[in-house]
């Protein structure tokens, strides 16, 4: 599903990712860990094509992304649900509108959009907040809206960048449970986190990044 082969990414002569190779199979759940600035976010950005590698090959669900045409990028992104670290919620749209956007972009009918968006809101326990605006929600609630927006199109791959970064332990546990449920449905999940509690005792693969290098791999 995700295949990195000797991928390197530099920013102004500073290496963010160096010669990283790994694969994630269909339905696999992988945690990406490491200190701040170790390259976790860059690695996720390379997957959702917000960045392009300077060297190496990245294959996403059969798409070789190094030489991908501009017009094909949306097709790859539609296979991916993203939980952004900075949320990227549209402040002038309601919670429902934010979630529905992911479906409207994919051309889903209005009727289906409505029913699926409300289902996603139910999954993250925010059905009652559908008409609220993101600014009126707590950090944990906003995080759950972002998760709902990421999962509503039922993507093949789910990427999450520090999904529990600013959450209290109880809310973080709730978020972890949501990811477990989504994974149970067969979604490939890649979570970048430095929250050890999130992957501890999960038995899932944990990749460790340090200064852009893949320094270790183990089980959580």
């Amino acid at each position, binding site marked *: 599903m995700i295949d990195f082969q000797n991928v390197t990414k530099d920013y102004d002569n500073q290496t963010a990712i160096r010669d990283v190779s790994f694969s994630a199979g269909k339905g696999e759940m992988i945690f990406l860990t490491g200190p701040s600035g170790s390259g976790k976010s860059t690695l996720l950005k390379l997957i*959702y094509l*917000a960045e392009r590698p300077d060297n190496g090959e990245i294959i996403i669900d059969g798409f070789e992304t190094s030489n991908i045409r501009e*017009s094909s990028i*949306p*097709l790859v*992104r*539609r296979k*991916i649900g*993203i939980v*952004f670290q900075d949320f*990227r919620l*549209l402040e*002038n749209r309601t919670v429902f509108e934010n979630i529905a*956007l*992911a479906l*409207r*972009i*994919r*051309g889903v009918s*209005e009727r289906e959009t409505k029913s699926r968006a409300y289902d996603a809101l139910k999954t993250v326990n925010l059905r009652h907040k559908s008409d609220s605006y993101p600014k009126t929600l707590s950090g944990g609630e906003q995080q759950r809206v972002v998760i709902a*927006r990421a999962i509503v*199109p039922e993507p093949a791959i789910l990427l999450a960048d520090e999904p529990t970064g600013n959450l209290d332990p109880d809310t973080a546990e709730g978020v972890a449970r949501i990811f477990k449920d989504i994974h149970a449905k067969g979604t490939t999940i890649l979570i970048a986190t430095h929250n050890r509690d999130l992957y501890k005792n999960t038995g899932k693969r944990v990749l460790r990044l340090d200064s852009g290098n893949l320094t270790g791999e183990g089980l959580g």
Partner: protein
Amino acid sequence: MITPYALKLAIQSLLKEKWINLLSVLTIAAGLLIISISFLVLYNIDIATKRLPEKFSMTVYLDNSLQRDRLDSVIDSFKKRKAVLSVKYISKDEAIRELKSSLKNSDYILEGLEENPLPASLEIKLREDDVRAETAQQLAGEALKIKGVTEVDYGDKFLSTLNTIKKGFKAIGLVFVAILSTGIIFVCYSTVKILFYRRTEEIETFKLLGATKGFIRTPFIIEGAVIGACGGLLSLAGCFFFYYALLMRLSINMPVFKSVLFPANLFMPLPVIGMLLGITGATIALGRLKY
């Protein structure tokens, strides 16, 4: 593709950015109104110049010795030509009678004449579309080759002046329309560009969620179309106001304005023209933006 959601986004943006949009609509309306008024002036000038050819005629002077049967064949040869509308024979007697009547009280100057010095002639009127210096010149050249024709007078200076006036006004009109249309396109272009920049963050999120360029572009093109169409509609209202509330009132004291023609049906496509200019501006803006 225009989806209900693209329409919704466009309407939301039109309402949210109402002041900048209103300013653009007014600018476009002003531009189209100036074009329309210029068109009205050109239209009336064109109508006036079209009436002039009705008065235009060629005079073919005939040899005094021309026999009746030969005269008929000369008349027939002119009538057969496509450019000729009518041929009227003016005999020597008729010619002197016309001269006398035109001289009125001054006809004494003809008293000393022992014989009629005027030749018989043919008055040839051309079809409206053929009243051109080239056609008249060609016909005159051919007429001079006919036996019995001594001279041809076809008002070449009048024709070339008329043509120059027509061409001049057409050229000025075209340049004017081109400049103002470009201005209108530029207004739409700038408006869409500003609207786009104000939504950069939102567009970035759209892209990351998998939106295609078409999905991102469509609402802006709809906005350009609506802004242009509203400008066109306003200019249409302006045209009617200009004619009925301004010109017609002025004509009460200045009757010259009464003769101004107002081809209302020709102004009806203004909203569509505005819309097309708006779409063009928006398309150019989106084509030049990197996103």
